[in-house]
């Protein structure tokens, strides 16, 4: 029997939702809070409030692969140079966490902390992104940061620093639930297929497709139209994906010409194969088998009322929330 593409994709999204790994997510958040508090205690008034970014914050995370990004905005006068800021943060994290981590590594613009496995076998990964406000005392107003570029390649190959506005990147995807569903699906495909493409690139190209084309219909029809947009546009001369955090960054510059053509070809092949046989959708967009049956246990509906209870409720005396 042919696969119902819409229903299959809904199931793909459902089985990749973060709620299935809530305990693990809680551990990430607890560890993140610990690190945030340690940073605030150490750097005091030299930093503004650290905040989450990345797929958690953008609500595009999928439960097969994720880490948690924390941005630490330093004040302009806290360090003479961006490199000193980056090194200071690395030294502090190394000193503080060397005994409880497998690795503390310098990454392109962040410092990655990979904590040792806990008793459940879970490994927490945090990416800490230091940034220095661009203009003295203006960060609260303009959210502009300068990041130090440690590892130079691709778009960063000739840069020592990069100006960005991470809040603008987060805002760019706010209230775009349809776009987020397609981004999650493309991330699932990408992760299942060697993770060749940056999630941020897939995010920007999806949002652009929704802006430029009439992306409507059911979930499959929306995905199909976005894939067609990528197929048609990605290898075109002059096609740009401008970073909402810095209009000088074009994410298309991170791809070589042959990679653009390759991405276009892969979209074309996928579309052809799925449209010739709907079962093929399962190989490109697989469900997460670990959580396939999680939501089938409850078929009840409506708000429940306890039998024999009082007509109204009084909340219990003391409750604690976090």
């Amino acid at each position: 029997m042919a696969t119902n593409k819409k229903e299959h994709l809904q199931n793909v999204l459902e089985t990749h939702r973060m709620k299935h790994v809530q305990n693990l997510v809680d551990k990430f958040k607890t560890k993140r809070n610990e690190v945030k508090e340690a940073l605030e205690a150490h750097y005091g008034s030299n930093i503004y409030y650290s905040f989450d970014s990345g797929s958690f914050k953008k609500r595009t995370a999928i439960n097969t692969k994720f880490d948690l990004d924390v941005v630490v905005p330093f004040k302009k006068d806290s360090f003479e140079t961006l490199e000193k800021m980056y090194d200071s943060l690395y030294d502090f994290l190394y000193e503080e966490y060397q005994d409880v981590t497998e690795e503390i590594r310098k990454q392109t613009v962040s410092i990655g902390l990979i904590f040792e496995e806990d008793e459940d076998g879970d490994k927490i990964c945090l990416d800490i992104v230091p940034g220095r406000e661009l203009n003295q005392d203006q960060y609260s107003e303009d959210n502009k940061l300068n990041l130090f570029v440690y590892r130079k390649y691709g778009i960063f190959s000739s840069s020592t620093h990069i100006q960005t506005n991470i809040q603008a990147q987060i805002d760019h995807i706010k209230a775009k639930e349809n776009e987020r569903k397609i981004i999650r699906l493309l991330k699932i495909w990408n992760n299942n297929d060697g993770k060749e493409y940056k999630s941020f690139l897939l995010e920007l190209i999806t949002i652009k497709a929704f802006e430029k084309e009439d992306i409507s219909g059911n979930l499959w029809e929306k995905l199909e139209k976005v894939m067609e947009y990528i197929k048609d546009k990605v290898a075109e001369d002059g096609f740009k994906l401008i970073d909402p955090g810095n209009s000088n960054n074009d994410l298309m510059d991170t791809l070589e010409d042959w990679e653009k053509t390759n991405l276009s070809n892969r979209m074309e092949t996928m579309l052809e194969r799925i449209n010739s046989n709907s079962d093929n959708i399962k190989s490109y967009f697989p469900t997460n088998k670990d959580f396939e049956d999680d939501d089938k246990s409850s078929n009840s509906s409506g708000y429940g009322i306890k039998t024999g209870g009082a007509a109204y409720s009084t909340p219990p005396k003391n409750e604690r929330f976090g």
Partner: protein
Amino acid sequence: MKLYNKHRKVELIIDQKLLERIGKKGIEHFPNEFGGFLIGKYSDDYKTLFISDFILPKSYKGSRYLFERSSKGMKSFFSNLFKKKKEYYVGEWHTHPNGSTGFSATDLNAMINIESSTSVSIKNPVLLILSVSAQKINQATFYIYDKKKLLPYE
């Protein structure tokens, strides 16, 4: 604003201005967490919850990552609310200053305690988490509690 939870196939309706009023209270306590109780009523078929108001706790403790509230001395308030307006306590709300609207293990435990409390007659209390900054509400997410899980409305 009308939200839907597909897990229990229920609706939640709240006026945008009410949500903004709740958020404003939360912002006043920034950068600490703050919260309180949600008041509302159900449709006759128990498929829709109308959130009609919110109540601040008489006593509470708030810090950057924790909010503890007490309902001590408020029993008569909830009793009168039902007698006069046929409205009930339907859930809880609190803020995550500069945080996400995801719930924590502490939040889930609190909702487990609430549902299992003998003074609570509802099986599916709701939880509203507001992400706030010093100036504005960043995001708000409602969850329905069901069988030791919190499931978001969309």
